[in-house]
């Protein structure tokens, strides 16, 4: 196919193939150039054709959950790719504070660094006695250390990113009576999986894995907006949930322990925003 502009029929003809990525290089270039130059009516037609093809593709995608640490690795990769270090120095900072600002702007995709930079720039400038500053910093450090020590050990463990726990972590869980680790439950032949479907048209996925013999269940969720949710089981002939548990999703998938000893029958699982009756995901047995 030549690299000259495509006709409307040719554009629509190639729209699905472009979405699937199967055009040859020359076709791809011609398609991109022609679509960009097309009038709005034709662009809308191309957009509709590609949306239809996209729906078909999404219909065939497997319901798999990414590793909890994948997001972090992607962000790290993007930070390395950007590799930008700012040379500007905010006028409000004092000379001994400059290294913090430079560090904060070195990784533009690091939200923590950006927050640090923004907070730093918002601080009012004033003269502080250096002894008072030293005492303040020491007290702040001590309070942080005490807070860390008082964190609930179970919550600390479930904040760990890697759900494929190491043997030392398994031993820790058993020692502290924290139940069967997710890895063990996932691999057990007696575990029953309930797969959820996003009924809002979004891309959220979830799997509830329950093992009656081991007496434990885990919910793995991905693709939801960070926030507070409710997992509940509703019988077909009733409105009230027979099982309900609140959980918080922080934006990255991890196994959430569910207090469930056995699976009820004759109904469906639902995941809703806390305080809402509208199901976002509905689960059925895999």
């Amino acid at each position, binding site marked *: 196919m030549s690299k000259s502009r495509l006709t409307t029929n040719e554009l629509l003809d190639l729209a699905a193939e472009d979405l699937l990525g199967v055009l040859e290089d020359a076709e791809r270039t011609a398609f991109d150039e022609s679509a960009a130059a097309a009038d*709005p009516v034709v662009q809308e037609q191309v957009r509709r054709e590609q949306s239809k093809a996209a729906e078909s593709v999404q*219909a065939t995608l497997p319901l798999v959950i990414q590793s909890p640490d994948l*997001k972090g*690795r992607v962000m790290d990769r993007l930070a390395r790719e950007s590799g930008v270090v700012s040379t500007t120095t905010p006028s409000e900072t004092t000379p001994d504070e400059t290294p913090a600002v430079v560090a904060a702007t070195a990784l533009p995709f690091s939200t923590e660094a950006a927050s640090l930079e923004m907070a730093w720039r918002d601080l009012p400038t004033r003269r502080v006695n250096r002894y008072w500053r030293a005492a303040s910093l020491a007290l702040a450090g001590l309070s942080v250390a005490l807070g860390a020590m008082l964190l609930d050990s179970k919550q600390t463990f479930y904040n760990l990113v890697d759900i494929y726990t190491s043997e030392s972590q398994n031993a820790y869980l058993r020692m502290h009576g924290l139940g069967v680790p997710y890895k063990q439950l996932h691999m057990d*032949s007696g575990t029953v999986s309930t797969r959820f479907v996003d009924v809002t048209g979004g891309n959220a996925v979830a799997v509830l894995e329950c093992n009656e013999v081991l007496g434990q269940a885990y919910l793995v969720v991905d693709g939801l*907006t*960070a926030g507070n949710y409710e997992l509940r089981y509703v019988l077909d002939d009733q409105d009230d949930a027979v099982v309900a548990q609140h959980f918080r999703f922080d934006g990255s998938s991890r196994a959430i322990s569910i207090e469930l000893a056995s699976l009820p029958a004759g109904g469906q699982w639902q995941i809703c925003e806390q305080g809402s009756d509208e199901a976002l995901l509905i689960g059925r047995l895999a």
Partner: protein
Amino acid sequence: MTDADQSKLANPEWDLMQRVARQEPGAIEELYDRFGSLVYRMSYQTMPSRAEAEDAVQEVFVRLWRTAERFDPNRATLVTWVMLITRRYLVDRLRRMGARIQPVALAEGYSPPERDTTGKRMEQREQFHSLMECIATLPDLQRTVVTRAYLGGQTLRRIAEELDTPLGTVKSALSRALVRLREQVTVEE
């Protein structure tokens, strides 16, 4: 300013991609939160291993970041754009790998294996069964074209040459296959 430009400025998806292009804090994270799962599922379906799928996700988001400024909501919705970038990367990678789908397995038909009750691997089952159950119901030519193009990354021209079938026939088969796959999901729901 044209109507198209005005509608672009009011489009939240365009705004997000502009923020990604400007490397504003939180923008790329927001993009990942919305589409990371989709990109991973597409990669997992196509790549031969989980590790390569995860590698593909990284590469795709690098490309999404680099091309963020070029996103035009008049051209495509953001989800279509993300899928387009993802598919182009996956197909390019497949072509570099020289990936080929064995047509023999398809010709012999597909039957779901018995439920694996020992050491089950949910993700591996899902990867294979979800797609193949859909494709297995298609007529022969449609099945072959979809599998070679979608999973193998072959161009339609090459598929037509190898099958000794007119290119127009192959294109029609792909088009009909996509319609049927979409209808299958609508019926099941």
